[in-house]
């Protein structure tokens, strides 16, 4: 069973639907016990980092996610859920993340020139770094859907993919069984579904 962590943020209906579309059973849950019992865990999220981090701490969901990850359960963070995997974020002050991936979350403005709009909203191509099981069905340049103003930095060792938006932007990270996509695979058509399928099926996550 795939547990989709429900802490009150994000389009969970589409996420659950995308897994069932590829023949995977997913359960939307806010129960730490269900998260610990799951074969895989998905941490979704939209909105502001600080609010989301606070909500995740309610009922000890943050501890359950970290404990599951510590046991080796494959974990996929999506959009803000990916940003929460980092050590900290500088969105509206400094906020502590889960610390499962080394690095921090900063405004893209340090990379993106003034003439480009933030947030980045829309479809952009993936530049894949190395070969990772999560992207075994993905080709260089395949486009996925992004909505974000912040991104991960100081995470060179765990970088799996970048995208070009006035500069190089962190699109995906991975460290052993913990992975994150800045884009929304559940909103990225066939390319996105193939990434979710790879997450749901691949057993070995070592790079």
């Amino acid at each position: 069973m795939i547990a989709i962590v429900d802490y009150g943020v994000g389009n969970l209906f589409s996420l659950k639907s995308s897994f069932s579309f590829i023949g995977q059973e997913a359960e939307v849950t806010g129960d730490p016990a269900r998260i610990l019992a799951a074969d895989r865990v998905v941490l979704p999220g939209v909105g502001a980092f600080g609010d989301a981090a606070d909500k995740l701490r309610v009922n000890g969901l943050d501890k359950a996610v970290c404990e599951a990850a510590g046991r080796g359960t494959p974990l996929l963070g999506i959009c803000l859920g990916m940003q929460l995997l980092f050590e900290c974020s500088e969105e509206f002050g400094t906020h502590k993340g889960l610390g499962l991936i080394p690095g921090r979350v900063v405004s893209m403005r340090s990379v993106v020139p003034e003439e480009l709009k933030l947030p980045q909203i829309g479809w952009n191509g993936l530049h894949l770094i190395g070969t990772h099981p999560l992207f075994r069905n993905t080709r260089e340049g395949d486009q996925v859907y992004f909505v974000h103003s912040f991104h991960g930095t100081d995470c060179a060792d765990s970088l799996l993919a970048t995208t070009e938006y006035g500069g190089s932007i962190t699109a995906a990270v991975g460290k052993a069984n913990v992975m994150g996509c800045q884009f929304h695979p559940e909103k990225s058509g066939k390319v996105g579904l193939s990434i979710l399928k790879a997450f749901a099926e691949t057993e070995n996550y070592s790079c």
Partner: protein
Amino acid sequence: MISKRIIPCLDVRNGRVVKGIQFENLKDVSSPAELAAFYSESGADELVFYDITASAEHRGLFTECLRKVARRVFIPLTVGGGINSLEDFDTVLKCGADKVSVNSCAVRNPGLIDEAARRYGSQCVVLSADVKRVDGQFHVFVRGGREDTGLDALKWIKEGIDRGAGEIVLNSMDTDGVKQGFDLPLLNAVCAFSPVPVIASGGAGCAQDFVTLFKQCPKVDAGLAASIFHFGEVRISEVKQLMKQNGIPVREVI
């Protein structure tokens, strides 16, 4: 580089698509889920659904149809029409919508934009504006274009962005239905100050109109159209092919 988006728009009444036509391999042209899947397969980058159901008692049909769409179509979905409160936001977001578009109700109650942006994030709040020239000025119209509010459109859109709208759908009533191309002067006027994405609506008559749009208004992020796609006059793949030939970044149809 980020792609320019092509967005078909579907009007839904009592859970059925209005104005559908016969496409190959499409059994039920009035089924929102079937038409949405067809558009998604054809390369639509996003879909907009407007609920034009008149009576409150039939509103449930729309949310049910939205759920059906979200179960099989995995591209961003925007929902508009009849959104008057945070509860309305909540209802459609729980059925698979990613963004919610507000129009008349935001003019009546601009605070709704602030509240929705605070609760769901700006990326979720789309301000849709119906704009028409009156005595050489851009005015905002409401109630499906029937009522002139007298509001200056550029000022209203700026206010909406300041309040937290994360995207603008700019529908020109002057070019809508004429099929002679998008309203480039209006779009350029809004793009000159908008820090958020602008979606052009109203006037598309052929694939070339999208090329002209993105060439003449390079800051426009997306082009929206309804009838030319529904009536099969123009295929999305055709639009994207022509855009690509003209050096405009597009997401290729797989």
